[in-house]
């Protein structure tokens, strides 16, 4: 095989989606990379933030058995990073110290301490190519307030919203509640803006439920986002790959029967929440990363086109690159498509959707790596030094 580059896949981390990240990394990234002939270095960040590497960490069984995981976490599997002239992994072995130079990094963490841009910041410092969204875009994507502001600034429809700091709410809750009641129409959604996987989100139908919902969001985040719910709702999502030129997957509609997806519905129950949901997802259902869904979403052509256009516009507006998924809300009666949120690293890369769109998991990985290298090459052309006499004059 011609490809012999070393790809480090970073996953796990200190985030509620720690376990989901392991699945994304092993199933959708590491296995295809191996099939493509890459030398894969799995880098596992445990729940306390320690970094590990070793073949054991590329096997799902390691994480299914506490003893196996503890065994894998033997001292010499702990790693250090060297960020001089690229990224080098330093690891102890029986015979001494082993240095592994990394050619490309594939970040596969979900949520905080990774997907939120922090990992990308480290990789930028190391000046190593990496897959997926860059630091700034990840920060925007993982902050629902910022991404909604970006949408508004770019003329992209998004449900009306207000946001507050936790401190603001805790010192004067009555004022915050008053502002919400005067400024927004019920039902509302109260969200911790930095968290993914629907953690801490509450749907509020009555005024009496609002304070409790705000407290829940404040428990998880330093900011609180409150937005209006969309009526006659159809939820759709669209995975996209690309830097400048984009390739879209298929518009996908989660079959959640009117209830919004919380963490358990997304990952624990296989999407079978709600009495009416059928195992198998019905005739057109497909088990995806978020349970059962309709691929492609059966929508009037006009709405499909509008959703596709909104998603690609938002992808560009936020400066996303590599891969991301744009979630949208549609008011079926009015036909208005709203931007909801961005997922800069879709769970399992949404391989089920790409396969339906004619792009295999292996092809998807190849494309994402190529995009990473293209982005890196383009960035290397940007000047990072500037000659001045400043120091001499000091």
């Amino acid at each position, binding site marked *: *095989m011609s490809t012999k580059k070393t790809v480090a896949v970073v996953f796990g981390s200190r985030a509620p989606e720690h376990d989901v990240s392991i699945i994304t990394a092993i199933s959708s990234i590491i*296995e*295809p990379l*191996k*099939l*493509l*002939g890459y030398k894969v270095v799995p880098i596992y960040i445990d729940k306390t933030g320690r970094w590990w590497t070793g073949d054991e960490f590329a096997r799902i069984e390691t994480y299914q058995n506490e003893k196996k995981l503890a065994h894998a976490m033997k001292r010499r599997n702990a790693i250090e990073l060297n960020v001089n002239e690229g990224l080098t992994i330093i690891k102890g072995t029986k015979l001494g110290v082993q240095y592994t130079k990394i050619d490309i990094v594939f970040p596969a963490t979900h949520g905080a301490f990774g997907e939120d841009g922090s990992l990308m910041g480290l990789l930028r410092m190391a000046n190593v190519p990496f897959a997926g969204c860059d630091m700034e875009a990840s920060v925007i994507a993982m902050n629902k307030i910022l991404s909604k502001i970006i949408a508004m600034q770019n003329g992209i429809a998004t449900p009306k919203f207000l946001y507050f700091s936790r401190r603001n709410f805790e010192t004067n809750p009555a004022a915050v509640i008053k502002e919400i009641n005067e400024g927004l129409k019920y039902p509302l959604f109260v969200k911790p803006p930095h968290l993914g996987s629907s953690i801490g989100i509450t749907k509020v139908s009555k005024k009496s439920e609002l304070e409790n919902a705000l407290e829940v969001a404040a428990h998880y985040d330093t900011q609180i986002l409150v937005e209006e719910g969309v009526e006659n709702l159809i939820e759709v999502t669209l995975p996209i790959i690309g830097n400048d030129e984009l390739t879209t997957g298929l518009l996908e509609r989660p079959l959640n029967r009117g209830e919004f997806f919380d963490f358990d519905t997304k990952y624990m129950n296989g999407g079978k929440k709600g009495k009416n949901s059928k195992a198998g997802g019905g005739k057109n259902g497909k088990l995806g990363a978020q349970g059962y869904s309709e691929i492609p979403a059966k929508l009037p052509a006009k709405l499909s086109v509008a959703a596709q256009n909104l998603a690609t516009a938002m992808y560009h507006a936020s400066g996303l690159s590599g891969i991301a998924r744009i979630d949208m809300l549609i008011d079926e009666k009015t036909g208005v498509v709203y931007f909801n949120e961005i997922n800069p690293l879709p769970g399992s890369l949404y*391989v089920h959707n*790409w*396969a*339906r*769109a*004619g*792009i*295999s*998991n*292996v*092809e998807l990985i190849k494309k994402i790596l190529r995009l990473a290298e293209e982005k890196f090459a383009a960035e290397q052309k940007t000047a990072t030094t500037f000659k001045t006499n400043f120091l001499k004059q000091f």
Partner: protein
Amino acid sequence: MTKKYLSRFTIKPDYGEVLLYMLQQTEYDVKEYLKWLHRVKNFRTVIKRQSLVKTKKIRLLDLMLVIFTMLYAAGIFCLVWFSEAIWANVLALVLLLILPLVTPYVIIVPLVISKYLIQKPAEKKILARAKAKLAAHPAAKIAVVGSYGKTTAKEVLRIVLSAGKKVAATPGNINQPLGIAKFVDKLNGDEDILIIEMGEFRAGDITKMCDLVGPDIGFITGVSEAHLATFGNLQNIVKTLFELRDFLGKKPLYLNGDNDILRKEDNKSSILYSVDGLAHETVKKVEIEPLQTKFTLGKYKITSQLIGRHNIGIVAAAVDLAEKFGMSAVKIEKGLKDLIPFEHRMQPVIVNGAIVIDDTYNGNLMGVTVGVNLVRELDGFKRKIYVTPGLVEQGDKTRQIHVEIGKMLADTFDVIVLMQNSVTDFIIEGLKKHKFAGELLIEDNPLKFYQNLDKFVAVGDLVLMQNDWTDNYA
């Protein structure tokens, strides 16, 4: 040489386990086992595809191996203990070093002894009993022979004829005398038709099995360069297959007319079946699709789930035979409806939205040609992908045949996945000769690849997976 020697000192799996595994893989065929022993370069990487099944026979051999090793070690120990002479120490060291070289041969001694003292006489009895039972059995006996296509032909005949007759056929790919005898043992005696597949490895094999079975009707499904390693040349294969015609005399013999050699060998007394049908009933309106094949044969409008043009002939022959057995059109049509693809033989399966044609039981150039031709006929796919480890048992034509395969693949497929082994370079040579411009992937872990096939394919892909390469050919 040194590397091979050192690789015998393996712990997981241990050396004994590797030897026993290979004996099991070669079905205790000592010749095949010895061939492998001389060919193998690294004992550590032998067990890839399967694992050792601990049968009674294996446990017994394992025990013998342990006893032998203990006695051998005791001998060395005594030599060192009781003699102070330098030569004794040197001899002990030599004996110790040659132990791994001796062990593979020691292990076959009990096999060879038991073969001639127990197995052969027992087999003789079993075969005699089967022959007597068959001679007294009133059913019409159909013998199916050929370098390729015989299992498919047997299954097509069984399914179509079963719609109106009580039919029994040798199961799976059982096609050797002992297997046939075991099949005969289970017969009720009230069957109308018996279909018996016969596999040939050496000249005289078909005559022996005809003598056992006493067929009334014969089918020769194809001739190609299969098992060349034992036959030497194609002519010997033809001669062996036509032992069936010699036995049948004036009884009906069906020949696959799609095969050039069989057509040439026809002495006008045989019934030729082909993609065009039979002499008295022609096939028309053929439509080749990825999941089904449509055609008409006289009054029958056939939609068969058996894919590929090459299956049309045998279906037509089955209809002809069913009519000769007096089956009604209604029953024949029912039989045709029951035809479904056979496991690992041009069996289309949907993986991740892609159409994957599993033809991994195919093992010869003709089968490869048929598969590739089918893919050439099918349009409307985003990518055409071919997966193969290559063909085993091609004798001194190994290179020529694989270069030929490479040439065939070059202008048909967008992606070619080769399982790394001794013929990989020959296929690549063929691909280069025909300027293959697609993507070439070489996988060194076939099992892992097959298990992860879903990651390789997507909607719009057509995948043809052919041939199998078990560990004993490594």
